[in-house]
């Protein structure tokens, strides 16, 4: 790929330090769980965003929370930075290793510790996969946040990215389902944030931790809320000549007061690509497909479903297909979930963006993306969570053509700018990581970033947790500014404290 990693040359001092750390780790986790050889470490060089790669000098696979704490404590004593890694499916380079640090891989910690359906809670270790949670509580209950990567991605990764999925428009995101966390802080200390009860007294550090991209500590034990599975589910796909009328249909459905379980859009390019993989027999000449899924109490669903069909037709749907059974519904979703992998069939390489726009600005921004695509002469396929305006433009390019990757990257940046200009966000679910940190100043001012840094420094004053991620430029924490100073008024006896 085009961003070939440079090889990091270690100084003797660094080598000696890492060697000392490795010895400590072996006594904590056992020799077989400490990886020091390049051929063992290659697997961990990238996460899901392959254009970045750094082979870590050292990796450890702790077996439980106590081991994680001891490992992090050892790093703290020796001043070695570290990066946590779940399943490595992240799409922003969040789990990209640092050259001079340790990679802490949580994939051995995959026990489901407690299923407490009386209280609708599940307690898991961080390496448990997203789908395993729903399996553990099904079929009566389910865990709503459902990233497309759910078969592989870990709950720890979900917590750290505040992951979303197709059903989040109705059900909310990871942050709305985490009720408790055990966190190992950067000095190795263990804190319990929340538990099975909601809104305990004190600052909502749990809420601040979710979505912190591995920079505030390592979640070693996670309590999740699960909810009863919907009584009934119905799914349809509506085809349109272009994305504009499909966008109108989304607005009409939402304006009618209906909250679909999921409402997802694919443009012509991605329909064509997915059809080659999933073979659902969809009309490849269609300009857009809208998948609308309603779930909930059966009686309510019947009443609402007809309304949705009518609204799609009124907005100009050329064809409507209602999934007749579970097999067909699965096929609709296979089309949607094939979109990323299928992009590989229409282009040798692509960048995925994750910008968000207010729903009412969808049509305008999609038009802007189209004209940017024409301007750069690069195809952009679009598949996205239409209900919450979270776009996933796939910017297609051929990395073998000199300069094309750079142009594709520039185009991606212009798309993000268009999202921000429309009042949206850089990222809806993939996170900032290393990939989007340079765009942070376009969304946030210096005081905003400095407020973020205040939180980070409270958790990790030495900057050892996932350094170089999220913030656009490296920052140090410094000491906490001195204690309370006597105010001049007070000194003059004009104001009394007590």
């Amino acid at each position, binding site marked *: 790929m085009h961003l070939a990693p440079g090889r990091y040359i270690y100084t003797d001092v660094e080598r000696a330090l890492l060697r000392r750390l490795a010895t400590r780790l072996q006594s904590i986790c056992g020799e077989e769980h400490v990886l020091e050889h390049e051929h063992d470490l290659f697997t961990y060089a990238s996460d899901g965003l392959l254009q970045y790669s750094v082979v870590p000098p050292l990796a450890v696979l702790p077996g439980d929370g106590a081991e994680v704490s001891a490992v992090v404590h050892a790093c703290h004593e020796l001043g070695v930075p570290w990066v946590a890694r779940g399943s490595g499916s992240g799409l922003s380079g969040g789990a990209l290793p640092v050259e001079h640090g340790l990679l802490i891989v949580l994939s051995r910690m995959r026990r489901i510790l407690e299923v407490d359906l*009386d*209280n609708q*809670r599940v307690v898991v270790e961080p390496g448990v996969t997203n789908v395993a949670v729903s399996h553990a509580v099904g079929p*009566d209950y389910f865990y709503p946040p459902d990233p497309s990567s759910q078969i592989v991605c870990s709950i720890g990764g979900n917590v750290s990215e*505040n992951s979303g999925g197709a059903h989040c428009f109705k059900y*909310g995101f990871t942050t*709305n389902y985490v009720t408790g966390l055990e966190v190992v*802080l950067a000095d190795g*200390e*263990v*804190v319990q944030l929340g538990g099975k*009860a*909601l*809104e305990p007294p*004190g*600052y*909502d*550090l749990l*809420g*601040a931790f979710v979505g*912190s991209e591995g920079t505030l500590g390592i979640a070693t034990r996670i309590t999740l809320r699960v909810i*009863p599975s919907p*009584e009934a589910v119905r799914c349809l796909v509506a085809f349109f000549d272009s994305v504009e009328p499909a966008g109108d249909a989304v*607005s009409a459905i*939402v*304006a009618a*007061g209906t909250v679909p379980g999921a409402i997802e859009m694919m443009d012509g390019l991605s329909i064509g690509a997915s059809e080659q993989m999933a073979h659902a027999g969809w009309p490849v000449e269609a300009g857009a497909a809208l998948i609308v899924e309603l779930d909930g*109490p059966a*009686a*309510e669903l019947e*009443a609402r479903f007809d309304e949705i069909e009518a609204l799609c037709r009124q907005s100009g749907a050329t064809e409507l297909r209602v999934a007749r059974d579970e097999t067909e519904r699965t096929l609709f979703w296979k089309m949607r979930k094939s979109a990323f992998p299928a992009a590989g069939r229409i282009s040798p390489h692509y960048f995925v963006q994750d910008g*968000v726009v*207010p*729903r*009412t600005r969808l049509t305008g921004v999609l038009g802007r993306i189209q004209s940017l695509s024409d301007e750069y002469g690069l195809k952009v396929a679009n598949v996205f*969570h239409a209900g*919450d*305006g979270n776009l996933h433009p796939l910017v297609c390019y051929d990395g073998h053509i000199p300069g094309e990757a750079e142009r594709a990257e520039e185009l991606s940046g212009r798309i993000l700018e268009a999202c921000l200009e429309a*009042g*949206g966000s850089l*990222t*809806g679910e993939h*996170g*900032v990581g290393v990939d*989007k940190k340079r765009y942070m100043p376009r*969304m946030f001012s210096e*005081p*905003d970033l*400095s*407020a*973020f840094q205040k939180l980070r420094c*409270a*958790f990790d004053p030495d900057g050892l947790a996932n350094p170089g991620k*999220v913030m656009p430029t490296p920052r140090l924490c410094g000491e*906490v500014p001195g204690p*309370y100073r006597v*105010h001049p008024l007070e000194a003059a006896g004009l*104001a009394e*404290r*007590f």
Partner: protein
Amino acid sequence: MQRPASAQEVAELLAEGRVTRPVGGRTKLDWGSPGSPAELELSTERLDAVVEHNAGDLTAVLQAGARLADAQAVFARAGQRLALDPPDLGARATIGGVVATSDSGPLRHHYGGVRELVIGVQVALADGTVARAGSRVIKNVAGYDLAKLMCGSFGTLGVICEVIVRLHPQPVDPVTVLAHGADPRELTRAAGTLRRLPLELEALDVRWDRRQGALLAQVAGRAARANAQAIAGQLGDLEVEIVAEDHTLWEDQRARQRAAADEQAVARVSFAPAELERVLRASPSAVARAGAGMAWVSLEPSPEALAALRTAVSPWPCVLLDGPEALRSTVDVWGLAEGPELALMRRVKARFDPGGICNRGRFAGGM
């Protein structure tokens, strides 16, 4: 009393370094520990605009001093609402105060608390800067979620100047199933039955008053009547009625979250939902969110009564909300024990407000 007209002016006042107390609608001013007297009272009354109501996007931007009731009236014209219904007897509560105290009402069941509904925040900080976090879109993971940190922080990390909230469509045809019962175990069992069913209830409350109780379940939607019948059929032995005009029922639930007189106390307990029975047994009278696991318990305003409640519901956290000053200055209002979590909170406080000027002493652990 200062009445700044912009976030910038709030920040400038904070930069002067005086111990500051933000004031909204004065409906919950005495919540929290009594703390240190303020050198500066800072009213949000001139920050009272509904800055944006983006009906098509179901979002709104509100200045902190905007009254919740006024904002709701604006949203209602578009058939929408902010699904946040804390008790608000004089209709004076401001959005800033509701967010700062993380107050909520029966709709907490389906729509979550303040933390679920606030998607962006603008705060004036002790260092004299104005910072924003979050955004105008409901789905956003760029930067830390400082909005959650501010929710329920009682103004001790900075002054909330503006919030961005997520709205929802007004429900169609709400109706309430009301079931009477005098046995905490039976009420808990009935609540458990409803929690387990995929009903998508708007609200699920329990009321408990000196050995008399009731379960209230609100359903809405095109098929609300049919669903209400189905729910009634699940409640077995309880005496059930279906109430179409249910407004006053819920008003009453909300009112019970506050002390009816100055010489009463109300404490809020958070608990795992299956523990409802134990919480009811420990309470002279209470309203509870049976699904969320939160209860507002009315008790005699004495340190002994509070201590007895805490022992009876242990280990579940119990915060004193309303109560006479004499009580609040003698007990630990927050009941948060020293330990790593409180230590971490102190580190957060120290970074945001090193001089301790924001509502000094009003929060947990003397922060």
